């Protein structure tokens, strides 16, 4: 699998490609953890447009990052869910914790929705 990270304000955007399974989960876990340790990210946004395969090991690593960002008061979202992942998203009820949006901008709007209220 491949992935890249970038920041959009205080949002860590992680673009995933290829296949996320037990074998590749560790690499993703370490990369995201390293970015979160920099204390720049308030939220995490996943670009899933190029991720053509994911199993429950992938769900495990995503939920692990979700728990951390939630504990820091942040949120997690995804956009451009690849059609291959739709059934897994449904079975794992992932939409409840990592809602998937049609575009990056829609997802960013959701992540930043409550921020103005707190300031």
């Amino acid at each position, binding site marked *: 699998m491949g992935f890249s990270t970038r920041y959009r304000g205080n949002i860590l955007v992680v673009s995933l490609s290829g*296949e996320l*399974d*037990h*074998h590749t*989960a560790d690499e993703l*876990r370490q990369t995201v953890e390293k970015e979160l340790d920099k204390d720049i990210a308030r939220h995490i946004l996943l670009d899933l447009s190029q991720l053509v*395969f*994911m*199993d*429950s*090991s992938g*769900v*495990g*690593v995503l*939920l*692990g990052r979700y728990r951390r960002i939630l504990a820091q008061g942040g949120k997690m979202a995804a956009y451009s869910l690849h*059609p*291959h992942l739709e*059934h*897994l998203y449904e*079975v*794992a009820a992932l939409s409840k914790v990592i809602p998937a949006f049609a575009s990056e901008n829609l997802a960013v709007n959701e992540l930043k929705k409550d921020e103005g209220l707190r300031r």
Partner: protein
Amino acid sequence: MNGWVELRIPALSQNESFARMVVAFFALQAGDWSVAELNEIKTAVSEAVTNAIIHAYEDNLDTGDIVVQGQATPGTLEVTITDFGRGIADIVRAREPLFTTKAHEERSGLGFTVMENFMDELTVTSSPRQGTSIRMVKYLNLTTVQ
């Protein structure tokens, strides 16, 4: 088309993608599966093989084998994944959604739930210290018709 395939691999995580690709290619040449169905088959195989690596052999690199068998008859794909590891102590509990013995390792506990949802039949047989066999069947077009 009738046919079969048998693959014996060491229980290493890099073989997870290999195992699911082999079964997907086998299914593809044996039946008229949709892309969505092939993806479900791949995911179910990945769950079973990963379970064998993580639970049956406990991620031990000096480990045992996993045997992946595929059987195709017209309209049906049967996949059996067998390991020779520690066995499952409580199959009913293991099959419960979100149940995992390895929560500290960020396991989601959804492996069996995914297998059940993505395939049409799932049978688990297991004996302590002898191993586990997961038999899964998928019927062509059954899921797409619904």
